[in-house]
């Protein structure tokens, strides 16, 4: 039951990033970069050589870490792992799709909007009556 789930409060939770080089560098300048003792970072820089599997692994890792509260993911990267992003339904970490330099934000692909659309879709409504 969703009502009984407690949110682990955290006074120094991290912001993770899965995005292109310039976006990651920009947010690292803003101080969000973290490297732990095992040299694990809270970001993945996506370029032409990054595979879909690497993106999937990073997404799964960041969404299961307890020290991460928000995951920023460029929308064009999220589209590569759309099935993973849309099937994610936990409140924390929050997944935010952000625009990138060459790919403006498209609300039609937003995972939240997809979920809302499904709620009001004709099939969904018909199944309840």
């Amino acid at each position, binding site marked *: 039951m969703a009502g009984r789930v407690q949110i682990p409060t955290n006074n*120094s*939770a991290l912001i993770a990033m899965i995005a292109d080089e*310039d976006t990651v560098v920009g947010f690292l300048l803003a101080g969000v970069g973290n490297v732990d003792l095992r040299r694990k970072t809270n970001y993945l820089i996506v370029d032409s050589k990054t595979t879909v599997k690497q993106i999937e692994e990073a997404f799964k890792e960041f969404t299961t870490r307890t020290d991460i509260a928000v995951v920023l993911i460029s929308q064009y990267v999220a589209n590569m792992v759309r099935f993973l992003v849309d099937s994610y339904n936990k409140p924390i970490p929050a997944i935010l799709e952000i625009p990138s330099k060459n790919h403006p934000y498209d609300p039609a692909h937003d995972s939240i909007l997809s979920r809302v659309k499904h709620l009001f879709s004709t099939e969904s409504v018909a199944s309840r009556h």
Partner: protein
Amino acid sequence: MEVADHKAPTLENGQLADENADVLQFMDSMDAYFTLLHSLSSTLRQYQIQGWLELASARHSMGAYRVNTVLLDHTSHSAATTLLVTQDEGKVDSVEPRFTLCKWGSSSNEKFLGEKQSSQDQLHPQLRHRGSTQLSEEKTSSENKASCEIDDQVQKGRSKSLSVFGTLVSPKLRSAQLSFETALETLVEMANARSEMLYAFDKVDKKLGDGKE
């Protein structure tokens, strides 16, 4: 029988009103979310584009080898900008997290300095017996001192972050840093709006699911 007949419609009307209230709350929060998303996306893109352009300009003036991910610090270090995650106190049975951005440790510093100030007030109660003007002057100067300490902390954090790209950096790189900081603030607002909407959505979805059963 007449009493029972009156009670049954009242109970159904109460449940219906309750469900309608949840649906209305969801529709309101969805409307607020998408309105905010639209304006914040424009703002975010504005600051991101500004940040990207400034980064490109810094790369042009400093050289591509100096503004490069190869230079990123891969030794163990903690993030200077983090999030404070709390649960909305008004909703005990909810899963609605609230996010507060702590830039360069500033929110935690403000809290620490506030606690330090209140503990100093407790140690020196004789201050309360002084004239009100003198007391307010002392309070203002201590607040200014606290504010200066926070500013120093922030500036040190910013300088440390920039130092990854060398001692002398382009002013454009500093501007890019500020643009992305502002973009972060926008993103945290979006995260809170999203969280609020998802909370309302889950309530409606659950009610509809119960209705189906």
